[in-house]
């Protein structure tokens, strides 16, 4: 089949179904409701189930139960709804269960707005739930990538038995772009001998719990998980290096703003300014080593985000004060233009030259 013109939200849903996810639990919230609608239409046709829960809290706990019983499952929401899911996410992490969660970000805090935002970066990468925990966070920047990263998310979730969060935004969710579904690659679902789905008299009972009252037991449980996170950091970091290797100014940007930044990089190059774009595809694990490497050759970094400066702090940590790290952002639902980013590049390069 050739390319189809499809919304980001629908591309995620279709890619999930093609990944073997037959169960979706969710609750309507703008700007991601198309996913539930798409799932409701398609799931019955593939012998799956789309269930509209009474709340985000219930939805994530349905995901928890379904994942624990050994199936590929996902939920999706937008910022305020993701906050509600955070309790369940923490339990899913604490039980080492796989699942896929999509956040089509809108502006916050509170009810905020419904236009695109990246202001849940901290929540996604630092604390989507209580406790010593991390998520695997993927940041698509096109509709094709919305689809591919969804397929990847199921593979990573199963491989490491951890929830994978896809951090998108209202623009990526609502926009249509051509997608080639035949070009997607998938990871087969592994056996799940740990699942609670009846011991069938063939094994000892399985227990899935995140409760460890003895401090030494909880500590060793967390240390085990930390080993897993270390493996993830060593093996799963993904980024796009666009003309960074000879760049004086490296822009760091993910998702929708990475596209805008890439256009600005191209314009800057035309003006003789050596700019580059480092686009993290995994926000957690973060491409720390690559940024550190670039801090040897680049003169300055510019983090471009749809918030008041969140990822910029991870960039600073990676660069370790070797080079100045600047920030440029819009928030509340407005996007910057590539001209706006170019202006920042010119400003920084003026300071350099």
């Amino acid at each position, binding site marked *: 089949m050739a390319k189809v013109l499809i919304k980001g939200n629908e591309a995620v849903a279709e890619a999930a179904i093609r990944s073997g996810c037959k169960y979706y639990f969710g609750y309507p919230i703008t700007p991601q409701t198309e996913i539930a609608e798409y799932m409701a239409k398609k799931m019955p046709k593939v012998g799956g189930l789309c269930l509209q829960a009474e709340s985000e809290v219930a939805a994530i706990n349905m995901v928890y139960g379904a994942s624990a019983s050994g199936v590929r499952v996902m939920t999706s929401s937008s910022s305020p709804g993701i906050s509600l899911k955070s309790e369940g996410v923490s339990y899913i992490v604490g039980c080492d269960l796989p699942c896929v969660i999509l956040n089509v970000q809108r502006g916050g805090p509170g009810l905020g707005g419904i236009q695109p935002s990246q202001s849940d970066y901290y929540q996604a990468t630092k604390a989507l739930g209580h406790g010593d925990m991390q998520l695997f966070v993927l940041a698509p920047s096109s509709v094709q990538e919305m689809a591919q990263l969804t397929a990847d998310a199921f593979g990573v979730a199963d491989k490491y038995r951890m929830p994978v969060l896809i951090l998108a935004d209202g623009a990526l969710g609502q926009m249509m772009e051509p997608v080639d579904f035949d070009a997607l690659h998938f990871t087969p679902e592994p056996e799940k001998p740990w699942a609670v*789905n*009846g011991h069938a008299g063939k094994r000892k009972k399985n227990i899935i719990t995140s409760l460890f009252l003895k401090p030494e037991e909880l500590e060793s449980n967390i240390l085990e998980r930390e080993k897993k996170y270390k493996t993830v950091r060593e093996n799963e970091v993904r980024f796009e290096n666009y003309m960074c290797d000879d760049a004086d100014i490296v822009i760091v940007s993910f998702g929708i703003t990475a596209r805008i930044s890439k256009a600005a990089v191209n314009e800057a190059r035309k003006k003789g300014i050596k700019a580059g774009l480092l686009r993290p595809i995994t926000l957690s694990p973060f491409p720390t080593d690559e940024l550190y490497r670039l801090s040897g050759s680049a003169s300055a970094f510019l983090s471009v985000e749809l918030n008041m400066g969140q990822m910029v702090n991870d960039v600073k940590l990676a660069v370790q004060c070797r080079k100045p790290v600047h920030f440029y952002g819009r928030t509340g639902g407005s996007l910057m233009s590539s001209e706006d980013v170019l202006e920042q590049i010119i400003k920084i390069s003026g300071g350099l030259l």
Partner: protein
Amino acid sequence: MIVYKRPEALSKVPMHYCPGCTHGIVHRLVAEVIDELGIEADTVGVAPVGCAVFAYNYFECDFIEASHGRAPAVATGIKRTHPDKIVFTYQGDGDLAAIGTAETVHASARGENITIIFINNTNYGMTGGQMAPTTMPGQVTTTSPYGRQKMIQGNPIHVCEMLSTLDGVAYAERVAVNSVVNVRKAKKAIKKAFQNQIDKKGLSIVEVLSTCPTNWGMSPTDALKFVDEKMIPFYPLGVYVDRNAMGGEQSDK
């Protein structure tokens, strides 16, 4: 010859419950029912947050620990993906009727084909005897130290009465385990609640009036008397709904 022995579905480990607490009795009844229906190999239990948080250690079937109040949602996730398995939740009153009210009501309204064992002991046992949604008017708890007053702490919830109004609930019965006769009735109700699930009839809930001697500040025998004299008059025993018996329509899934 009748031999009193541990049900197969009950694990050979000592329970952590307080002396005189009736959780042990209810656990045993559930295990006996699982044995008698021969469903252990296909059963998944969902434990609550509350005194029964360790229920997963006491049964031989697969078990998962839910977060506080979410057991019906977790059970929904398991049952909907494995309709041929038997899924039950075991929840206390704070879990089911306070923090988990939405999950309880909506799983009931949807008619999820699951079984809920609901322990009503009129207080939060695990955290040390705070007021529960089932604490009775005038009852003293650590967070209603002058007795529960309608104008301050509001009214308690009668769970079986409330849930019986929902079409998805196939069966709701309130029982007690304060006497031999009541224990037998309780077992019959629990068995029916599991059999209903096997028969795909919808949601079944058995509310069990239980004791909490430690937090009530009573001896085990006085606690049993409290159930008889105070709780049963306020929370009358009986079948609140049995849609199959009444010939009513089950919710169409």
